[in-house]
């Protein structure tokens, strides 16, 4: 028997994990979901009890699945492999898993019983989940395991559009001049449905939070269009936006290094250029 944890029947990674479990040839696949708020240690205790005698206990390879199985592994004192794309059962089993954010595939032996692993995204095609058993947290879970503490709540920045996923990002650099100066950047971003970003000089000056920083020490972005306003194009910044498909640079200094990477260049003061672009967009939309 294989015990396969799922987050829900509609969850794509869970569907892939169940399909993967079926392909292993280790018998029946028992698919379970757990009701109630996420409490990794308590959920793991529940899986440990349900999985007694199972050949394998598996979960989807997302943050929660990996955390959950790590707890299961700790409780059983067995090894666990995360983000597997192929598993060959045996003694020991061999696994192929994704390392370093997808840049490496590692072949490894997994010597444990039951086999504990999570399934990497797109290891197999998703299939609809036929039947899922929804359970509650087992009585065996200790009071301490059930306690989940919220240590930090990170507010989303940029008016709800996430920097790393946005199709358009409008960033300001030192040339913006002040925290208040960002109003023109925010205005343009809002018109474009874009996220607001900034350079390291801006976060160092305290004009914007670090969560807004685009760069080597901030967020690396890959939008369709990146509008860099008053940013000189330091290496540390360019390392964060090199994934952008198109780059529009606005800077008064024609010698600024950002123009070397720009697809579109406007040599001018952002405080004149950006409001003009916003006005033009408004005019076009109202026409």
């Amino acid at each position, binding site marked *: 028997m294989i015990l396969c944890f799922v987050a829900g029947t509609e969850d794509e990674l869970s569907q892939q994990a169940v399909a993967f479990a079926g392909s292993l040839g280790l018998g029946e696949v028992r698919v379970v979901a757990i009701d109630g708020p996420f409490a990794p240690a308590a959920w793991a205790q529940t899986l440990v009890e349900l999985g007694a005698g199972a050949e394998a206990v598996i979960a989807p390879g997302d943050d929660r699945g990996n955390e959950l199985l790590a707890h299961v592994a700790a409780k059983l004192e067995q090894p666990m492999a995360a983000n597997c794309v192929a598993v060959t059962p045996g003694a020991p089993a061999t696994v192929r898993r994704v390392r*370093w*954010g997808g840049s490496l595939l590692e072949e490894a032996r997994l010597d444990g019983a039951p086999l504990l692993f999570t399934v990497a995204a797109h290891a197999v095609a998703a299939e609809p989940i036929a039947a899922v058993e929804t359970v509650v947290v087992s009585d065996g879970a200790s009071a301490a395991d059930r306690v989940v503490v919220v240590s930090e709540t990170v507010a989303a920045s940029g008016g709800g559009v996430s920097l790393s996923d946005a199709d358009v990002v409008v960033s300001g650099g030192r040339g913006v001049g002040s925290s208040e100066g960002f109003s023109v950047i925010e205005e343009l971003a809002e018109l474009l449905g874009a996220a607001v970003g900034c350079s390291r*000089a801006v976060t*160092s000056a305290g004009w914007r939070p670090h969560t807004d920083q685009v760069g*080597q*020490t901030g967020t690396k972005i890959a939008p369709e269009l990146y509008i860099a306003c008053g940013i000189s*194009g*330091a*290496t*540390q910044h360019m390392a964060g936006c090199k994934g952008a498909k198109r780059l529009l640079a606005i800077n008064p200094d024609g010698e600024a290094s950002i123009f070397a990477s720009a697809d579109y260049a406007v040599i001018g003061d952002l405080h004149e250029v950006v409001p003009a672009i916003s006005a033009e967009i408004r005019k076009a939309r109202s026409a």
Partner: protein
Amino acid sequence: MVLSGALFTRRVQFLAALLRTGAPVTRNGDTSRRVRNEASIVLGQRKLLQRIGPGLIHALIFWGFLVLGPTIVIAMIGAVSKHATFPWLGDQGWFALLVDVFAVLVLIGVVSALWIRKVIRPARFVGSHLGEADLILALIATIAITLLLWHASRIALGLNEWPAGDAPVSNLLSRLFGRDGVTRVLERVFVWAHVVTILGFLAYLPRSKHLHIATAAINVWFGRTGAGGRLEPLRFDDPDIPEEDIRFGAGTTADLTWKQMLDTFSCTECGRCQDACPAFATGKLLSPKLLIMGLRDQVFADGGSLVTARAGGGADNGPSSAELELAALVPGAVPEESVWDCVTCGACVQACPVSIEHVDHIVDLRRHLVMVESSFPSEAEPMLRDVERSSNPWGKAQSERADWAADLGVRILEPGEISPEYLYWVGCASSFDERARKTAEATATLLQRAGVDFAILGPREACTGDPARRMGNEYVFQAFAEQNVETLNASGVGKIITNCPHCFNTLGNEYPDFGGDYEVIHHSEVFARLVAEGRLKPQRSEGLTITYHDSCYLARHNDVLAPPRELIGAVGEPVEMKRSGKETFCCGAGGAHMWMEERGDAINGNRVREAAATGADTLAVACPFCTVMLDDGVQSEGTGMRVADVATLLAEATAPRSEPAT
């Protein structure tokens, strides 16, 4: 006396046993240098005298006690019998004079030290054990005063073995006493007070911060003798080291080397390290002094179990040191934030009068955090990943590494080719960073103008691994060290020119540990020589004032001070900043801080304000990271100076009239 001796011996035996539990580190060899260090740092008080006022005070007390040493024995003999003394020396008038003079100098030292501590109250003492220091000063004063009074009472009683006139101070004090029974009692009181204070001091000493009297000279002896910038490599795959003894930096006191333990015993809490620290100066949490004190407290707290575990040694004889459940050094003894505040500039190490090596401690703490706990500032993660994946810290394509040289006709050494006399190691910053590239262009142009035969490795040059190493990722560093050494050795490289002090330090001081032995030359050294030989003839710009910022890894860690200054003098008018040469103040990029966010005030801002205060037109640098940091600083401070590498300035000053400057 027996009690004092027993207390002293027991404590010393315990400390020695504790040191034997320390992890191994080689500090042998180079005896002549070690003897010279003892002579200059201990006897000559060289590092203390880096601060002339407090240094002189300490030197007076220290030299005083060297002279007064024999009087301990003389007083002990005198305590037993008032008519006996040490053969010969006890009878010498000149020695009585010396004792008189130095006892007074010690008292002057004590009073001045109290003046500093009680009236001036410098910030460097914040967090030190001040009460303990007062007690020790009081003991020292008591020793000197009782000695003088004892001599004075002996003169009054006519018991002096030497002419009274030879000891003018004691002679003067003798007028306080009559030749009567009271004085006879007082003479006994003084000598016993003197002896008992010394014995009390002896018993108290190894339990106090004054342990440095016993350990400082030893710590100085075992101090580093090579370049300050070299880090001790971790041995991951040395077959001679059993697997359980492989260190991944320092997680608990059981991981500390014996030298690191000895460092903590030697700290006097003087705070000179803290005063010199750029992180502390800009409001970061790190104080190198508090870091060492925190480690020392933990070493003493764990000391008993470490010694027992070592003696028992596992199996049925109790836990081995690996099995001890010791508290984590971070955050127990040292807050995690302060571990990451360090820029590895080495100002603390240079300031320390007893040769404590703070940077080695910090890097070992980082190594454990990174390699075992995977706990480090998240903003540095992309750098580590990019070094590992792309061979440079910005994730640029290796194929673009030589793009800066595309129009310059620089030879790129192909696999299988043998290097010409000089290999120019460009470094990641000068290859990829827009501002630092100007240095690479200037360097290549100047070498061509002077007719130097050189080549670059182009895409086969990889990061030296320095930023990963300073972050604590020794594993990634060693992989790059091995790869680069293989490339360089296969190309028969003998001499390397580099314009990056970090590459300079790593290639020259650290690659020998991985089988790479090269003569590594900083570009400022090459150009200073070419100017001196007349192969480069710069036009000096009268009235162009230039202040030179020393890079920590060039000046402090590697003693390259004169060549860049010769170049500055050849192209303009030099103006020195107060903190220059080996006393330089970091730009803020070292220790992988180029890739970390700064908390508190900006180090580069602090430095740029100092540079601007000189009134110089140009801020010259000799490091690509200093270039970027200080240029950023100039922009955020709005000081409007030009920041340029010495190579750029020299290239402009040697440009043929028709050719535009690079």
